[in-house]
């Protein structure tokens, strides 16, 4: 899915590199240098999502989000910033941003997050529903999972991991995203926790035969085949 993105970033070199990366991944990217130009651009055009720097001259990112949300504009916004404190993140999300990513970010991870935000907007089914991805069915409410109709015994965390992958089947989820959403951590552990749990999940999913449904996207993360 090709996305139409607005990149708001005052650092020209970084912005050009990132824009080139995003274009290389098949998306349309428009770049502006500050908050006021961003407001004008959003007023003029329809974007699938906005990637917004926080510390910018003239109008900073936080004010841009607040002004957009105050005027009822709901375009998905991912803040891309150098400020990494927990309180900074809370500020960003409270202002109305959909996600908050600390610089630098791998372009694949950024796109994965943008897509997750867009997808999250379209996701209407409630948590109580069972989630289907290929021949896998997960019920986060009853803590149960099946593959090809056969029940699979999973530990709590493995089930949450599978549910998150299934909810975003076909999309790449990065390790950072999984740590944040499945483990609920606001830090990135130095150990390979995600890889270990993915390995265990794979083993349990293929125990009774069938191909490995989890795809490793090298250097980026994991994706469950839809």
């Amino acid at each position: 899915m090709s996305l139409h993105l607005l990149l708001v970033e005052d650092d020209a070199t970084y912005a050009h590199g990132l824009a080139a990366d995003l274009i290389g991944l098949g998306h349309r990217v428009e770049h502006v240098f500050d908050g006021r130009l961003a407001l004008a651009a959003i007023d003029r055009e329809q974007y699938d999502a906005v990637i917004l720097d926080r510390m910018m001259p003239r109008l900073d990112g936080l004010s841009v989000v607040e002004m957009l949300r105050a005027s009822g504009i709901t375009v998905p916004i991912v803040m891309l910033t150098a400020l990494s404190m927990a309180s900074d993140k809370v500020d960003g999300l409270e202002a109305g941003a959909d996600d908050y990513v600390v610089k630098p970010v791998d372009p694949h991870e950024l796109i994965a997050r943008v897509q997750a935000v867009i997808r999250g907007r379209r996701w209407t089914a409630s948590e109580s529903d069972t989630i289907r991805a290929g021949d896998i069915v997960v019920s986060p409410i009853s803590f149960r999972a099946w593959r090809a109709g056969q029940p699979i015994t999973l530990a709590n965390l493995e089930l949450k991991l599978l549910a998150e992958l299934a909810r975003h089947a076909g999309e790449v989820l990065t390790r950072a995203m999984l740590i944040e959403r499945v483990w609920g951590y606001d830090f990135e552990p130095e150990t390979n926790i995600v890889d270990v749990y993915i390995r265990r999940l794979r083993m349990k999913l293929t125990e009774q035969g069938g191909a490995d449904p989890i795809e490793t996207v090298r250097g980026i993360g994991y994706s469950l085949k839809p």
Partner: protein
Amino acid sequence: MIGAAIRRLSLRGLTVGVLALFLIATVATGISILTANRVTVARAVDRRIAVVADLVLERDAGETRLPTPLLLTRIAALSGQRDTGDIGLLLLGADNQRLGGNIAPRFTLPMGWSDLRRRDGIIGLSHGRALVRDAGEGRRLAVVAETEPFDSYRAARTRIYLIGFGSIILIVIGGVVAFSMLVGRRIGDQRATVEAIIAGDIRHRVPVSGSDDEFDRQAAAFNRMLDRIAELMEAMRGQSNDIAHDLRTPLSRLRGQLAHMVADARDPVQAERASAALAQCDALLAMFAALLRIAEIETRQRQAGFARFDLSTLVRDTASMMIPVAEDAGRRLGVDVNIVVPDFTGDRQLLTQALVNLIGNAIKYGGDTITVSLDASEEGVSLHVVDNGPGIAPEDRSQALRRFGRLDTAREAAGGHGLGLPLVEAIARLHRGRLTLGDAAPGLGVSLILPRR
């Protein structure tokens, strides 16, 4: 020296001391006044008695003896006069028989001065003085007078003293207690503010009553100081934001360019070099992130977000979560939570990070067995992560806690930015606890000691 002694006095000590001194002084004053009063009255009465006795026993010039009828006439005359009518007079003969007078005491009065009480049986007299003088020819003259100007004088006097001095004492005690409570409360307000600030709420201020008294001025000065500290902290935070921005942006640029170089590399040698540079850039970013995380913890802002949770469950869940990670690295991880801590107050995320870090370290550098345990200790609770690896020599332990104080040998080879333990220590300090490294013989025993509150 006196100044030092006064400074050492507590508010309560000072209050009690002043009250005690005041009570002693008041009681002493009361007793002195009472005594002086009694002595003065007794003296005046004695003088009066002596004068009356002189009047009865007065001899004209040349008169050698005083006939009994003369004495009785004089006694009768004195008894009839207005100013001496209240004086008791008694004339006794040589054989102790009553010759005349207006009183009849139950007991024989001794010669000279004596005190009288109600039991002496003189009608209408409860307290008095008596003088018995030789009247010649074996006769004796007794003169008695009351020392009380009216009946129940003593009881009335006691009542007056009690009411007078008692009300003074009550007023002073009430005043001192009210004063000490007021001082205590105003100082308590300041203490509450300080406690709130220690707990992380820098916006807290000492309440000002608006009376512009000493305490108000003190509170205002204190609040101005806090405003200044808050300003400085804000400036520091701004600075650390600037550093984060100014360093992260060029590092991000660098990383982007290196990533492009890796992607665009034509020959494998170039690709390998670019990959190595990219890995180093990522290590630099990780170190930078850890430094900023430590700085964030040290601002103590997160204390404002402290919440109550079950620490034993957190430890059990987090350690259990790490079991597969340990197994994956060929280690055995045991979890031994011996106590229930349902009401620990702190930061869940940071304590989870601390435990994940410590277990991660043990997996990376320790032996094949790791034990995580939670125990009650004198100071609160102790979280231990023990491995049976090579451990850290006692002389190297302080180095391990120092920032970038990575130990060479095995630890150097395993990589890492040398900020893992300092980060855990910062988390311990945020919770008013501490981190210790010990010898698990063999291996390393890391203990996170956290006070309960």
